[in-house]
């Protein structure tokens, strides 16, 4: 037993007559290693913050008291001009709808893409088992490229508008959901598929009638979660690139003082949209996964 536990090579063996001290010795050594690792980690984290602080334009301690200045300034100005807020809300609702549409279309297209890719990349279900690694690497590559890279390049080629953002987010979604979908599909029961095969069903029929009903709740749940993520991503891409409420926010910020009522209105719209979408998707995901 001892040889198995400590390996075949000769070396110091714990004293079997005194198991308590041997155990304490082991615990002590483990804790020491853990402590050293923790210390190293903390040192790394601390020096990282110091370095980041150094390379920042404003220091941490200088900025900390000012952290509320901007929100305070923005909100006080918006409060002064609160009579304007209602029309401003109405004015930005179309961009909010555009952002929601970007998120929804990219989630939808990405999910459709992910369904195809994941079924082709799942062992036991794949149409061409030899090509499984190809489809897996495709999904990895789609996940690896950040959305902003694709979006900015596509803005240059396609001009502005929401389409570059949809393609960028959709590609990323395809890769990310593809991986999750394939993990779900791996656990699907193969018996219905064999049954369908025995009556001569084609591959598409087997997937549509044999796999889909089994995995649909989990897939939908993942797709809803992805929709939440994509809503945020499309707002950020709008800020960096073009289209949607993110772009409106950037324009309002560039105007600066005098337009802070718009900033507040956009903040509020975005906040409400994100919270509402989160709540709705939470509710449906609970129902889908728990089944009630």
């Amino acid at each position, binding site marked *: 037993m001892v040889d198995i536990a400590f390996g075949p090579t000769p070396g110091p063996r714990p004293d079997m007559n005194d198991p308590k001290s041997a155990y304490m010795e082991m615990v002590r050594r483990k804790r020491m290693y853990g402590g050293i690792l923790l210390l190293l*980690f903390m040192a790394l*984290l601390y020096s*990282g*913050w110091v*370095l*980041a*602080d150094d*390379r*920042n*334009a*404003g*220091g*941490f301690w200088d*900025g*900390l008291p*000012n*952290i509320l*200045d*901007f*929100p305070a300034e923005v909100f006080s100005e918006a409060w002064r001009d609160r009579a304007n807020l209602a029309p401003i809300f109405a004015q930005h609702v179309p961009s909010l709808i*555009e952002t929601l*549409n970007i998120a*929804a*279309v990219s989630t*939808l*297209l990405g999910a459709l893409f992910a369904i195809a890719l994941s079924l082709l990349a799942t062992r036991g279900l794949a149409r061409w088992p030899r090509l499984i690694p190809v489809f897996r690497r495709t999904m*990895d*590559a789609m996940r*690896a*490229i*950040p*959305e*902003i*890279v694709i979006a*900015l*390049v596509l803005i*240059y*080629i*396609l*001009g*502005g*508008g*929401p*389409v570059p953002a*949809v393609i960028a987010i959709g590609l990323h979604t395809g890769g990310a959901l593809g991986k999750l979908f394939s993990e779900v599909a791996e656990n699907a029961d193969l018996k219905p598929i064999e049954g369908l095969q025995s009556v001569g069903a084609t591959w598409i029929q087997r997937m549509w009638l044999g796999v889909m009903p089994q995995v649909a709740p989990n897939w939908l749940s993942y797709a809803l979660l992805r929709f939440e993520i994509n809503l*945020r991503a499309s*707002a*950020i*891409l709008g*800020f*960096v690139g073009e289209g949607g409420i*993110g772009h409106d*926010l950037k324009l309002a*910020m560039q105007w600066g003082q005098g337009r802070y009522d718009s900033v507040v209105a956009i*903040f509020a719209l*975005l*906040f409400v949209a*994100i*919270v509402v979408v*989160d709540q709705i998707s939470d509710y449906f995901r609970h129902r889908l996964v728990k089944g009630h």
Partner: protein
Amino acid sequence: MTMFANASLPTTPLHAAVLQSFARKRRIAFAVPLMILAYLIYASISFDLAGLAARARIDNAAILLSDFWSHKTHVTRDNRTGQVVVAIEGENKGTYPKGMQPDWVSINGDVTTIDLGAGHIVTYDLAGARMVVPSYGTINIREVGGKPVLDAPLPIPDWISVAPNKVSVTTDAGRFSYSRSKVETFKYQAGWELWFFTLDSPFYGKSLADMAYLATIGPRLDETRLNAAYMLSEWWNNRMWQHGVVVWAIFETILMAFLGTMSAAIVSLPLGFLAARNFMPLGFLRGAVRRMFDFIRGVDGLIWTVILSRAFGPGPMTGAIAIALTDTGSFGKMFSEALENIDEKQVEGVQSTGANALQRARFGVIPQVMPVLLAQVLYYLESNTRSATVIGAIVGGGIGLLLTQAIVTQKDWEEVAYYMVLIVLMVMLMDSLSGWLRRKLIKGA
């Protein structure tokens, strides 16, 4: 079997219910794809897909693709002064110094000869300029009264464009254009030029063997330091590609992701205990902490980033704080859920030995939740490397800033390609690092 389809049999309630549910499912199977299709049609109208074709600039795509794998060298003559300049990408930083030029350009007094390859030869002289295109003939341009006059075999093909003040020729070998003020020739060559050393570096154009000789036993080019150190510093400070700046930017991006994720995890752990039902009996405090998490997640990274950059100015720390703040909301929620799902028996076991609350948490709870928490933190670390690229573009730090700047100038596409490759490599590196850590730290993962 026939019984099921036989409609004349008396239908039991069960039979009817089953048939009804079949019919409903069948309707759904048709309705859902139809709804998706309808929505996509609506979206394509609202996104103005039809107008996209008009806006799309396919020539931009061509520029982008050619810059991905090649570079161009400009040979420009100022028609007023007669000065000839050879510059890579037409940039100051890539200009050949006087007396130095690539071997395909020869300058002989007032006559400049450019060999574009495959028999295409461009000559600049006092009378004007001419280009020889094999299988077509000689395109001769003379300057008459300050205007270029074209003399070429008729009919003029469509790859020669003639305007009153400008003649330009586009061939596979290169481009040539003549206007009143200057005459220019672009030669395209594969590869990213000057990637190692710029033209003013003593190491430019040296072969690999020469470099190896210089780095090891060759005489010192600069008395004060080793050749290898000199080489490294010339590469690091390369003015065209700015490797030093780029490496720092990549490091800053990873730093933002690391600091943000880890700090968020450290802050969220105690807060997670406060938000878990089985550890925090005080309902109002638990509710307050949970609402705080919801608020942080609802406000979203974009708004936090905007607010924080006003307070702390541009830089990696602002990005790190933005990531930390946003993730505190997500981690807090996930950690508190993990804490609510623990097995109470272990905690009771530890309690039976007389452990206090802190010891119970350390020895009864943490070992149970650690694998779950670590897995989540590592997933976030990996996805935050991507987010840090975007956040860097907003707060002005890291590789995201370099990328957006290079794209906005719409000129240095080879640099854009370079940054894109580096970003993808960085993300893949962090992917495999976090996967490796997950396997190392979490048994059975």
